[in-house]
């Protein structure tokens, strides 16, 4: 009887272990991951100032955390799409062909298994006669799909890219010139509306740069607030809307505080890449509690009306 009971216990134990493994294999398996194309690329941006004729090698590491994929490396020129730093790839053969001599990398398809990675080594060599100016490219890792599924379909092709910003300069000191295209805020605001700034900086020089600076806001009663500009790249011939940064967090350039009153003097100042002369502009804003005054007037009018009606 006792032996029989022990045997049953053992059998139950085996069943429990088996059931656990079975459930685990189906429920906790990496099936979700297996259905994804998941790629990472590092570094996402390369900034380079180089003499024409010289060479520089950059390694782009592509990591695959999804299904096994076959990837092909390509490099396309790009132009700024907007003032937010987005790029528009120029993929026509003529534009791509114009820079074939600039880059040396292995264009053959590479298979990367799940959790695998591959280093693409790109040798960048602007030709000796390259004009001294900026050139912008995107290194693209493009997933190769199976062709001909045999049914009506739209294939989905994933591509991940890293931008390459190149300034060619013989003396290593390309001319950089910045201008404040817009530094604005409302001239008169309600005390509760907040004070938001728009900062638009242009690049009229020969090389991309980052503005390093701040907005200093002085209130007439003495308090001073500083908003730090995000050091974002501004490409040649373009402009960029600049946000502010607090620690590692990107924020809008907005004066914090719940109640603003008085005259606010806002001074935008920055330097190109953190050195050289400071470029500045000042604006003034008046903050007044219009909503409170309006509320008081409304209350007063209603009060007078009630008094009239009751008298």
């Amino acid at each position, binding site marked *: 009887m006792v032996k029989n009971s022990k045997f049953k216990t053992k059998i139950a134990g085996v069943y429990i272990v088996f059931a656990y493994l079975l459930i685990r294999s189906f429920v906790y398996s990496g099936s979700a991951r297996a259905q994804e194309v998941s790629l*990472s690329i590092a570094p996402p941006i390369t900034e380079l100032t180089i003499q024409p004729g010289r060479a520089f090698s950059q390694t782009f590491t592509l990591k695959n955390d999804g299904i096994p994929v076959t990837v092909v490396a390509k490099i396309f020129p790009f132009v700024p799409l907007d003032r937010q730093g987005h790029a528009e790839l120029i993929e026509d053969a003529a534009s791509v062909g114009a820079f074939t001599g600039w880059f040396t990398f292995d264009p053959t398809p590479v298979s990367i298994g799940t959790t695998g990675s591959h280093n693409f080594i790109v040798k960048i060599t602007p030709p000796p006669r390259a004009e001294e100016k900026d050139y912008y490219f995107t290194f693209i890792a493009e997933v190769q799909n199976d062709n001909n599924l045999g049914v009506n379909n739209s294939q989905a092709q994933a591509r991940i890219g890293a931008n390459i910003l190149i300034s060619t300069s013989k003396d290593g000191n390309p001319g950089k010139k910045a201008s404040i295209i817009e530094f604005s805020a409302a001239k008169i605001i309600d005390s509760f509306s907040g004070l938001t700034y728009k900062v638009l900086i242009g690049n009229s020089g020969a090389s991309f740069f980052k503005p390093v600076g701040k907005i200093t806001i002085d209130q007439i009663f003495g308090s001073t607030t500083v908003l730090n500009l995000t050091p974002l790249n501004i490409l040649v011939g373009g402009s960029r809307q600049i946000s502010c940064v607090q620690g590692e967090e990107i924020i809008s350039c907005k004066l914090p505080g719940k109640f603003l009153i008085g005259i606010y003097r806002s001074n935008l100042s920055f330097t190109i890449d953190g050195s050289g002369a400071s470029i500045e502009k000042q604006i003034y804003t008046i903050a007044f509690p219009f909503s409170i005054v309006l509320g008081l007037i409304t209350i007063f009018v209603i009060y007078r009306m009630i008094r009239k009606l009751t008298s």
Partner: protein
Amino acid sequence: MHKRELMLFVLVFIFIATFATLSARLTRKANASSLTGASVTLANSRMSYKAAVSAGSSGSSVVTITTGGGYENTNHLFPGDVLCFTDAGQNGCIGNTTYTVAGIPAGGVTITLTSPLANNLDTSGYAVATQSSGWTLAFTTVAQVPIGGSLVITVPMADSAKGANAIPDTTGSLSTSGFDLSTLGPSNIIVSAGCTPTSWGTSDMATIATGSGTTDHVFTWARAGSICAGSTAITVLIGGPGMVNPAPITSGHTQGTADVYGITIQTKDGGSNVIDSSVPRVAPVEAVLISATVDETLSFVVGSPPGGAQTYCGAQTYIATTATSVPWGHFVAANTFYYAAQTLTVSTNAISGYSVTIEESDQMGKNGNTCTGTAPSGTDDYTFTSGKICIRDTVCTASVCSESIAYDWVTAASFPGLGYSLASISGTDAPFFYNEKNRTWSAKQLADKTQGGETANIIMSNSGPVSANSIYVCYKITIPGNQPSGYYYNIAKYTATATF
């Protein structure tokens, strides 16, 4: 009195006297026992750092140490630690200046500083990074502490050292090493709980006897006002600047192994006889630097949510997709909407953010036909230049949506073709949504870059770092009843790049 009686008297006297004497002594010894639950907790158990300086010149940001004399290498020093350089006599910091460690180059004997030295260093002096700690001592009395009795705590101090100069001490052995008292005063060493704390010492504060180099530090609280009963939990706090933890002993110490010190806690009666005692241990040990380098990276995931009776972008019954295809299969009915969805997820620590664009290789050509232009050239909805047959990109409504302008797309029979919309899963990185502007299914065309000369459209973007922000990309297709039979396909390209 007879001789016999006299002897008896003497014997009785000796017996009583001996009994009285021994009982007094032995009874006390029998009562003395260990304080129960005695413990000492250090808020910071990291050992102080102390090394012998080898070289360091004014204006230089590099200091070299030597491990001679058993002092430490740089393994126990980390970026951000504050260093004081003393002379040989350990008379404070040279120039009254402290420095912050910038880095520890390989080799174990070099320290780089965040700012250059203001003075030449004494090559017989020391580099010290002081680690101080508040203490909490807790125990429970066994026997009562009478009025006039006392509580005594003894903390080991390094022999022949300056035991209260806030510079960590160390010697060649545990028995002779110990803690520095720093600038602790009576108000920093108090009984915080147990037997009415203000009845201990001077309103709970200790009397401090700083160690002399041959004696240890002793903190004493005289008991006044009332008896402290047995079985009472007592807590003593050492606050203020805290005790300075010793540096590792200079002989026989293994880095990563604690140096263990005993702290003696005693209760005494009015005659300074020990009532109860205990020696809880403290174990300062080297810290471990945990470091990692995070590369700037961009991650992009294309996923396929479950098909069937699901709701994405406000519509139900979806064709199952994969990460690489949207297999519409055989269209069972004309003038009927079919739906498919994929998920896109992006993570990046790039400060300027990222964007994902969508474009198509061409409109859906029959057997891979080239569909020149952006719209059919014929009067029907499927004949393009040179008579090529395609499934067109939808125009949504009479107002005509495009790759850049969205419109509501609700009538399958009147506006056939392929289009897409977006919905957020995590974050708000999509530039438009299926239900924007009170629409039922706000849609756009896929940008036909190759044959239509259109510009790839941004479908996700953020101006800062993001962690797993994701959206649904919902595709929708319908064909007219007279769409020629055949096999139609194209390629939708998602391109994720960091913002420059």
